[in-house]
């Protein structure tokens, strides 16, 4: 498969159109606002990643957009329709790879793909789909005989079978081994190149950074920041932390001008060797973790250039 064949597969139409538009989306369960005033635009042809920890509201939000859940309030438009009242024709334009879908059917990979093809106006040929997700050797295997990763590939095959204009991928690589993840990424890149709009949820930062044109960091049911992966974190990205030990006590200065700070520190300690002197730039992970930690976000926004006591080191975001 050459790049040109993929991109030539579809003529580009209305390039700047908005595929998804949501405003003030709210969903409450048992008094908890799981989605709490979400605003979002996803452009046609874009790959958008919703990145956030478990329980951030990613799946609830995406299931509202898929038409699976009904929002409590707010506006939502997906491919020009209200997802709460999506018609069959609307569903035909949407592909869904949900977080956990049915695998109880006593069917082989080929049988289920052949059957689901009946639902679509213009299904991808089964053989082509099986090859695209790398299940050739498992075509005759019953679903319950597949590994977790192989089932996930089948989920993806079923999700793209109807050649959707818009594809939802809800944590598509959770449970995949590293190699299968990489292969999956290649598949998503092909779909993107062919013009499919993709909305992806993930709690893997590297996945969002690798696949998405833009990343929306979601926490507590709200969008914390939306930016291309390389711009995520804004001012925080330009900071560095200068750190050293004095009498067994760690000193840290977080600054946007590490050279000046270092010069100053060296001047003040011109008499000897500074123990464990380092200049530390935040990794994407540090930025992400501080974004989803409200207090850190506050600190980053107001004191990015000032001294503070802790570096945003890796804590478990759960």
């Amino acid at each position, binding site marked *: 498969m050459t790049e040109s064949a993929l991109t030539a597969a579809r003529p580009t139409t209305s390039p700047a159109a908005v595929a998804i538009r949501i405003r003030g989306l709210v969903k409450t369960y048992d008094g908890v606002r799981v989605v709490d005033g979400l605003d979002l635009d996803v452009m046609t042809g874009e790959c958008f990643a919703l990145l956030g920890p478990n329980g951030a509201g990613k799946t609830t939000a995406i299931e509202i957009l898929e038409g699976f859940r009904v929002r409590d309030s707010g506006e939502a438009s997906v491919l020009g329709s209200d997802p709460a009242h999506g018609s069959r024709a609307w569903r035909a334009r949407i592909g869904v790879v949900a977080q956990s879908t*049915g*695998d*109880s059917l006593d069917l082989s990979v080929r049988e289920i793909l052949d059957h689901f093809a009946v639902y679509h106006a213009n299904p991808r040929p089964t053989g082509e789909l099986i090859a*695209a997700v790398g299940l050739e050797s498992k075509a005759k295997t019953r679903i319950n005989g597949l590994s977790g990763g192989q089932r996930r590939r089948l989920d993806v095959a*079923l999700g793209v079978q109807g*050649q959707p*204009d818009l594809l939802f991928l809800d944590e598509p690589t959770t449970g995949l081994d590293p190699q299968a993840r990489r292969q999956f990424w290649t598949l998503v890149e092909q779909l993107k190149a062919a013009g499919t709009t993709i909305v992806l949820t993930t709690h893997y930062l590297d996945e969002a950074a690798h696949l998405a044109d833009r990343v929306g960091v979601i926490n507590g049911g709200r969008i914390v920041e939306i930016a291309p992966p390389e711009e995520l974190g804004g001012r925080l990205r330009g900071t560095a932390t200068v750190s050293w030990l004095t009498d067994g006590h760690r000193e840290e200065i977080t600054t946007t001008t590490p050279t000046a700070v270092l010069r100053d520190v060296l001047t003040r300690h011109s008499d000897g060797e500074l123990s464990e002197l380092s200049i530390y730039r935040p990794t994407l992970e540090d930025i992400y973790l501080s974004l989803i930690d409200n207090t850190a976000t506050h600190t980053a926004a107001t004191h990015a250039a000032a001294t503070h006591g802790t570096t945003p080191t890796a804590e478990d975001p759960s």
Partner: protein
Amino acid sequence: MTTSAPIGPSRTATLTPPGWPPVALARVKLETKLFFRQRDQLVFSFLYPLAMLLIFGSVFGGEEASPGVSFSQYFVAGIAATGIMLTSFQSLGISIAVERDQGDLARLRTTPMPTVAYFIGKAGMVLVSTALQLALLLILARVAFDVPFPVDAAHWVTFAWIALLGSVSGSILGFLVSSLPRSGKSASSVIAPIALVLQFFSGVFFVYASLPGWMQQVAALFPLKWLTQGMRSVFLPADAAAAEVTGGWEHGRTALVLIAWTVIGLVLASRTFRWRRAQ
């Protein structure tokens, strides 16, 4: 996942998804294939009535249920009715609950499959497997216990409409009851006892006319009693009607009760049916 196959969209215009008839037909074929692949369903819904006929027929076959009516004849009627209920109500109720719990229904909901095709697929599967089951039952009853086939065209017609109405109402009540279990695991233990109690109350294993009055009254509220009585009108001689509680086969009332359950079930099921498991 190789990079060798194209998977992106290739059409130039959005096409309308296919209409429901071809999808419904494909669903009937798929459901039937799945039904015969599921061993537990085959045993407990499809083969169970045949086994019950063999057991009860062998033990009590020589005795008379009422003057001129052998127990075998009486059982064949009751077990034909039971088979219909198990394949429609019990087996459908359990399998839908399991499909919902496992996410198969949610997956279907992500496709443009027409909703009606799903229901027709299930009901069609019930009709196919019920027809097959009844055919085997008739043959077994005749070969093993000398129970004759329905004696004339009129009896065959009665047999057909009772079986059809029983299957349709049972299927719809199967859709309805599928929402009762909270998980797929509990589906059997929630749904099967309903079917089992109804079998004892409705004159399947015991002569209905000799049951306590309160049991008869409870049973008369549900379809199985009427289905069983209708089947007796097919397999028992005409004068056996005198041994019924009301002294007649009550075809009109049977049709009315089954249709009423169909309508009530349809209204309730359309309000309670869910594609996703409860949160």
